[in-house]
């Protein structure tokens, strides 16, 4: 068996993966072996290409439904009431929708919520409410909404922000 058969597989070792003995023998072999030097150059040339290609394949794919689909496969009973939910003593039983319900009581959204409960519970959307307040850009996603004739409601869902308008058009 040639020396190359021993040393070629060591060419892609990382720091600490070879013993000192192996490392020094590898260096000695490399000093005199053009073929292994060329092999080392080849390895360096394609270093990271595979990881890059698979990451790109993942980046190209539309993952917008992925987490929703995962959550839909988990039992709704796994999720507990929102621990951060505080509110007035008369607040609705909590849950991801708890704060939404509490807020909506003051904003005549009861009709909308009736549709929310079964669909959203099954999907376990990560859902919270934000007022239409200016938010800083650049860090977390920001939302600013202003309207002269309509009352905007901002929902931030795991798929992205939604802007709805409270009330109906008749009677503005």
């Amino acid at each position, binding site marked *: 068996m040639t020396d190359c058969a021993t040393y070629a597989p060591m060419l892609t070792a990382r720091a600490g993966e070879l013993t000192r003995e192996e490392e020094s023998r590898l260096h000695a072999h490399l000093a005199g072996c053009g073929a292994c030097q060329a092999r080392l150059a080849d390895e360096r040339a394609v270093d990271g290409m595979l990881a890059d290609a698979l990451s790109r394949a993942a980046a190209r794919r539309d993952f917008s439904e992925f987490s929703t689909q995962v959550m839909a496969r988990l039992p709704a009973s796994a999720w507990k009431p929102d621990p951060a939910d505080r509110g007035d003593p008369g607040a609705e039983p909590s849950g991801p929708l708890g704060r939404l319900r509490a807020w909506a009581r003051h904003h005549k959204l009861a009709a909308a919520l009736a549709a929310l409960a079964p669909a959203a519970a099954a999907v376990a959307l990560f859902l919270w409410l934000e007022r239409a307040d200016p938010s800083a*850009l650049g860090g977390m996603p920001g*939302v*600013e909404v202003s*309207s002269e004739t309509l009352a905007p409601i901002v929902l931030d869902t795991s798929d992205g922000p939604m802007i709805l*308008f409270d009330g109906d058009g008749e009677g503005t």
Partner: protein
Amino acid sequence: MTNLWKAAAAAGALAAAALLATPAEAAADPGIPVRIRVLKGSRQGPPAVAPQLRDLGAQLSATAYVRWDQAGEVNASMDFKKPVNVGLPDGQQVVVTLLESRKDTATFEVQVPASRTQSRLTIAKDKRIVHQVTAERGGEAYFVSIRPWP
């Protein structure tokens, strides 16, 4: 795939052959691809989400509208600060403008002149904006969805 290189003689030099033309990297592009769809939400009718809107299903189901249809689509390569007009079936206009984009986020402005509504939203690459653009009348309302890098 095009033929690329051919091995040369023993000297090891390589001769160039036809090269693949490569598209410009996204970072150098002045604008970004954006998919804008016009949606109609309705309280009436059998609950149904049109097949082409299923990717928005999670967001749409968070509303009181049970029936969703697509009423228009614009696929644009949006340049910064150049407004794109999106027409609604009732003749109204919605104006969408790309204000800014960074590596993983894009900032849009949505204007609805008829109601003097203006929104500015920054979203991450993976997300979609769903924005109501008409007040509800007769149990129906129009929305636009905006998705950068669809």
